[in-house]
């Protein structure tokens, strides 16, 4: 029967090409607009570390005094740790792996005469960073535990920076001048850039930035190297002392195996806060301390700009209007065929058959609308990619979103067809046949 209903639907749609075109256009536009914005949202909230993200957590302490306006810059300074707190968590070693990190921005002075000086972004961090995030090395390795705490002048370079500075020769063991200091290259990573750059702070362009060098945090603090992230101080002005207990600027990540360890770590954070409170350093309740999962952290950081969300709601509202539009048109179209329905009913078709027949007709419109919707959303994504925003370049549709588009289109048009199909199958045959 399916083939027969498909044939009927095709004939019926062909009979009213303008109306059919209008309905397909409505579904296509609604789906196209919605899927453009849903795809943008999908890629922006994607898991940056598939397979690893479930083990990664961010500890959150609150060393801020009770009084004061700390949110002037639109974020919470306690999202970052102070140097003493970060060092305490590192030394406690309660997680399988833990790393403190901060953004760096340094001037590179290439030895090669034909290269001008330039700035690069990178990360100051501790040794567990590489194993915890699974940073792939092309040559060499990270610095070791001893170098990590000994303010060693060592650096790990990303492949693209190593190539730029040293060409195709092996860069391991070579010296590179960053800022005013020389660093020995100990490792080269492949170009590794999770999207979003989840471990960076809110100052970063997290969909565009990438780290081209990594060097020990202790060395960076020792040399007072330039940091490129948020630095928030309260209490007495610490005059640029990054080791100050009242300056929050470090990001901190831990790797924990499973929820039991996570619960234990959270308890540890609360105990630590209680201890700090009894020492008079923290003022807020110890239970303010908490632990974010990676995805929970990204949600907390609210990476998606308000405008993108607003545009998504606009697109979904648009889809709703399109559906109502199709619903009204289908109702008119189906009821106009009361005569035809009555003849079929008189010849023995059950109400269910009529319902299925019209259901299939709306689904056919959905499929056509879905195909149009895919084209329109490709067009929409193309225009998004031409925005100058940092997320623009990742706005691409993948296979799963493509299938979602088609499924959503068929779902939307079938939903819109439900009421009209139901009304159609309630047509009283006798009344209609009389007028024929």
């Amino acid at each position, binding site marked *: 029967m399916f083939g027969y209903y498909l044939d009927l639907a095709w004939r019926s749609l062909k009979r009213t090409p303008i109306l059919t075109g209008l309905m397909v256009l409505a579904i296509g536009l609604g789906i196209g607009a919605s899927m453009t914005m849903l795809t943008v949202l999908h890629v922006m909230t994607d898991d940056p570390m598939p397979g690893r993200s479930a083990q990664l957590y961010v500890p959150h302490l609150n060393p801020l005094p009770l009084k004061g306006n700390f949110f002037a810059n639109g974020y919470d300074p306690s999202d970052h740790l102070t140097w003493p707190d970060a060092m305490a968590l590192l030394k406690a070693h309660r997680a399988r792996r833990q790393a403190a990190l901060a953004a760096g921005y340094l001037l590179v002075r290439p030895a090669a005469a034909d290269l001008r000086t*330039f700035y690069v972004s990178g990360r100051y961090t501790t040794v567990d960073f590489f194993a915890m995030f699974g940073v792939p090395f092309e040559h060499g390795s990270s610095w070791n535990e001893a170098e990590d705490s000994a303010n060693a002048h060592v650096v790990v370079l990303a492949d693209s920076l190593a190539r730029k500075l040293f060409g195709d020769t092996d860069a391991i063991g070579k010296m590179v001048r960053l800022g005013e200091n020389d660093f020995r290259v100990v490792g080269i990573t492949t170009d590794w850039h999770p999207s979003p750059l989840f471990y960076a702070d809110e100052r970063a362009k997290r969909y565009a930035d990438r780290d081209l060098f990594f060097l020990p945090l202790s060395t960076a603090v020792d040399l007072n190297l330039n940091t490129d992230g948020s630095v928030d101080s309260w209490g007495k002005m610490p005059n640029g002392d990054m080791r100050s207990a009242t300056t929050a600027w470090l990001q901190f990540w831990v790797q924990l195996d499973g929820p039991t360890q996570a619960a234990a770590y959270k308890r540890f954070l609360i105990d630590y806060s209680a201890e700090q409170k009894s020492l008079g350093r923290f003022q807020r309740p110890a239970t303010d301390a908490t632990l974010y999962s990676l995805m929970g952290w990204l949600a907390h950081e609210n990476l998606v700009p308000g405008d993108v969300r607003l545009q998504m709601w606009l697109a979904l509202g648009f889809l709703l*209007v399109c559906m109502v539009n199709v619903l009204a*048109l289908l109702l008119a179209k189906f009821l106009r065929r009361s005569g035809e329905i009555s003849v079929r009913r008189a010849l023995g078709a059950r109400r269910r058959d009529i319902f299925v027949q019209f259901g299939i007709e709306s689904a056919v419109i959905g499929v056509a609308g879905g195909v149009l919707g895919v084209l329109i959303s490709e067009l929409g994504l193309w225009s998004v990619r031409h*925005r*100058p925003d940092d997320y623009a370049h990742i706005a691409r549709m993948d296979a799963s979103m493509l299938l979602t588009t088609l499924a959503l289109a068929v779902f939307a048009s079938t939903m819109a067809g439900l009421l009209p199909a139901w009304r159609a199958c309630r047509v009283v045959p006798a009344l209609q046949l009389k007028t024929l």
Partner: protein
Amino acid sequence: MHPIISALKHHKTTVVLVALEIALTCAIVTNALFLIGDRVAAIRAPTGVSDNELVWAQTSGLDLGQGGKAGDDTAADMAALQGMPGVESVVTTSGLPLSGDMFSRSVYRRSGDKGSSLDNVVEYMGSPGMLRTLGIKVSEGRDFLPKEHVDYDPFKKGQLPPTVAIITRTLAEELWPGQDPLGKTFWQDSNGKDALQVVGVVDHLLNPQINNAQGIDRSFILPVAMVRGGLYVLRVKPGARGAVKRDLPEVLTRIDPLRMVTEDHIYSDTVSDFYHGDRAMIWVLVVVTSCLLALTALGVVGLSSFWVQQRTRQIGIRRAIGATRRDILRYFQFENLLIVTAGIVIGSLGAVGLNLWLMQRYELAHMPLAWLATGAVVLWLLGQLAVLGPALRAARVPPVVATRSV
């Protein structure tokens, strides 16, 4: 009117659907128009400087962030920039409207009284000739005198700050609501000890960045001898801007080959870049709104045509018993007016609700009721336009149809 309503009762579902579609369209379109108006107003807000006659640049020495030697070449740089063809004047400033980085601090209405503070007030600093070069218009009071420019860097200790300031109208209103700010004194520094006397007021001067904490244009200008590590702002004849921007990095690197020119922009591009997100938003809103209106109109055309076709016999009968073409036309137009009005009434409530919901989530302003009226007029016109074709077709139905049995 009564027969129209009773006739509508026979098509309850369809009528409800059309009214619902109109209502949804009305709610969305009204809010979209409001958003468009809001963004357009933001883009058109005057920056307070001569947008089309400025070029700016920023350099960094090798010791940026470490030694503080950056800007030692400032005097030589300024002389070199001044010598470029097409350049009328050069100043150093701490920032330009919409240029990005800014510095803000608390100011006090009473000396040393923390309770009288106003937080997050943006501080602009500029070297002699700043107002003239940037094209900032003093609406009340006067420009700085040359002797008022002093050696001052807020990050250095032991320097006496300037004693006069020019403030924006917004800051004046917040410091002393409803009073004449000229000659009044406010205090800055972390303890509120340094007095600043207001010598001038400017009506427009946007902040280097626009956000919730610092607001849009709440700032004061301090006269300093030179802003180290600040921006070079060049007043340039509009036609020469491209050439000046092109040659600028070379002129600056010639003075100190080791440093980098980190920023060099034609100022009107800076302004335009600042608003790119708003422009994208306006574009999206315009496209979606037009599609929405077009689709709604086409939907109304489709349904009206269907009704006309369905009622051909009734129209024939009415015509046969004396109704004129005009009566039939009016009938359909009035029917449309009724349905659209019902939709607009529901839609206006929806629009207000949607606006309240958006206000909670996206820090939007209250929608002025004028936008509701605009949305209503647009939809009324749209409805009438959409029904005109089908209604004219209905009016052409000849009375003889009544006598035909189908």
